[in-house]
């Protein structure tokens, strides 16, 4: 029996029992679709986080007060108290490092902003003029913090503060009361949306000295450092650490993390998560494989008479085995293809429903799902096919 004939014979056999074939293909396709959709979801989450980090600026080094022993990003870093303050002067010193392009100190707090009787809780960010470029932000109106006067009572507000407190009216030149101080609005940020928990649309940016005075503190929340080039990130990190160590009496009491380290951690966590969901979805593929075996065993029983006939007509064991294996492979292949299409449709639906989530299934998951569907189908098809090939022709022919 030639391979073409085997394939054609198996196709006819599969199509000869349409309901059975449909259910089998459905079961297999659900397994494949589950892998495709779930990995699309997991990998989409990973890409979303990675993109968010990238929007922070691509060659960023972040200085945190306090010493952390771990090399990577650790949420505890955000709340460690520090033995020695991180100051604006520290930031200026870092700016002089050869690998550093610019720095921006950040102090953060919350306060109430009042305009014309309207009151709103806002996040106050105290920083320097370089912050705008460092964070790759755009201004919708006006200008950013002036370089010439670090103590100016001026503010740049987020897009939502503008719309909620001022409506369609321009906020430029208006005086806003924040806590017990009055500041003049000189600029409005362009709308950027959510950025790692801090919504840039809901901030009021003040000169760092003004913000520190407002919160009665000398210390900084962070110093953001931008390296001159991506390749200089490590150099910038080393130089920053050296400068701060020298300024802090030889004690290394700050944590300097690169964005890459943070990114790598998130990448790893979410990558593992994706593998995890892929593994769970793969269980359904194994179940589908067992279903293939069951269906093929039923097929062998159902077609015992036919197998006896083929043997009487001179079919060798291999011809019968191959015909049944080909049928199992066809069912799995059809299921795999249908599942792939179903999964891609599902991923497309996810992307349509949640446009921020780049829910594309990773190539490895698609290949693994299709490969596993085919191999389980074949593997679980072997036993029924061998059983068919070994049937005793006399007994098989006696069956109707």
């Amino acid at each position, binding site marked *: *029996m*030639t391979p073409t*004939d085997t394939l054609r*014979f198996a196709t*006819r*056999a599969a*199509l*000869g029992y349409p309901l059975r074939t449909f259910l089998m293909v459905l079961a297999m396709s659900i397994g494949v679709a589950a892998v495709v959709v779930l990995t699309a979801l997991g990998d989409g989450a990973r890409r979303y986080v990675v993109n968010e980090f990238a929007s922070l600026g691509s060659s960023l080094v972040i200085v945190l007060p306090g010493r952390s022993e771990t090399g990577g990003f650790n949420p505890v870093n955000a709340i460690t108290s520090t033995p020695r303050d991180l100051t604006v002067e520290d930031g200026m010193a870092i700016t002089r490092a050869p690998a550093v392009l610019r720095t921006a100190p950040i102090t953060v707090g919350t306060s109430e902003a009042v305009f014309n009787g309207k009151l709103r809780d806002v996040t106050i960010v105290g920083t320097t003029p370089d912050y705008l470029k460092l964070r790759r932000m755009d201004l919708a109106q006006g200008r950013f913090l002036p370089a010439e006067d670090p103590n100016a009572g001026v503010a740049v507000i987020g897009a939502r503060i503008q719309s909620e407190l001022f409506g369609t009216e321009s906020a430029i030149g208006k005086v806003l009361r924040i806590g017990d101080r009055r500041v003049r609005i000189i600029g409005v940020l362009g709308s950027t949306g959510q950025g790692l928990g801090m919504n840039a649309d809901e901030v009021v940016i003040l000169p760092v000295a003004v913000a520190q005075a407002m919160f009665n503190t000398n210390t900084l929340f962070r110093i953001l450092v931008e390296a001159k080039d991506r390749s200089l990130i490590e150099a910038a990190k080393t130089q920053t650490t050296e400068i701060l160590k020298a300024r802090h009496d030889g004690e290394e009491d700050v944590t300097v993390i690169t964005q890459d380290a943070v990114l790598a951690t998130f990448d790893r966590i979410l990558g593992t998560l994706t593998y995890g969901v892929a593994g769970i979805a793969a269980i359904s593929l194994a179940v589908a494989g067992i279903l293939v075996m069951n269906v093929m065993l039923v097929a062998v029983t159902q077609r015992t*008479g*036919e197998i*006896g*006939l*083929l*043997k*009487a*007509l*001179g*079919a*060798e*064991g*291999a*011809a019968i085995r191959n015909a049944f294996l080909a049928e199992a492979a066809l069912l799995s292949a059809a299921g795999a293809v249908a599942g792939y299409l179903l999964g891609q449709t599902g991923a497309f639906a996810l992307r349509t429903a949640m446009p921020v989530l780049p829910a594309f299934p990773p190539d490895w998951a698609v290949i693994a799902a299709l490969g596993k569907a085919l191999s389980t189908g074949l593997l679980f098809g072997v036993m029924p096919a061998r059983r068919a090939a070994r049937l005793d*022709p*006399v007994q098989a*022919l006696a069956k*109707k």
Partner: protein
Amino acid sequence: MALIELSGIERVFTLGDSAVHALANLDLGIEAGEYVAVMGASGSGKSTLLNLLGLLDRPDAGTYRLGGRDVTTLSADEQARVRRERIGFVFQSFHLVPRLSAAENIALPLMLAGIEPAERARRVGKALEDFGLANRADHRPDQLSGGQRQRVAIARATIMQPAVILADEPTGNLDRATGEEVVRLLEMLNASGVTLIMVTHDAALGAHARRRIVMQDGRKISDD
């Protein structure tokens, strides 16, 4: 030299703890071109004999020579090839594959032999003509009458131009008129030189044959 030579054939089935001799010390020779009816009551061993002749079953003792070649010692796959090339089967219940058309059913042995599609189509086309099935080529078995089904089965049995046709109660599922038509067809094939061995318990049908072998309890009790 006889086409078929059986000597000292034994076939024993074990039912529970008793051994049943389906065939006991059977010697038989059949020449090429003969027309033989194997008769006997059910359980007489006539079907077991047909299965042995068709290489579907193996004897427990004795030798079977087909065309001078000892076929009892062949492997299962070698026996399959001998069946494919030298033996045609016609069954009581036709044994057509229900999802395949008449033409495809007839083509099955050619497909199993790996003969290329163009040659297959030519031979199947000729067989359909010869057996008066030309306008039924694309009909599935459930769209054919009993007589037509058996004609498809006979066309399939002869498509490889075998030396022997083994027919097991070929008229058992047919009415008398159709049955006679089928027997005439088989006799025509025999007249053209094919050895015909037919198992039947129908005495009228057996009377057609030039040689009758009557079986009882696994033994040949008459052969004339």
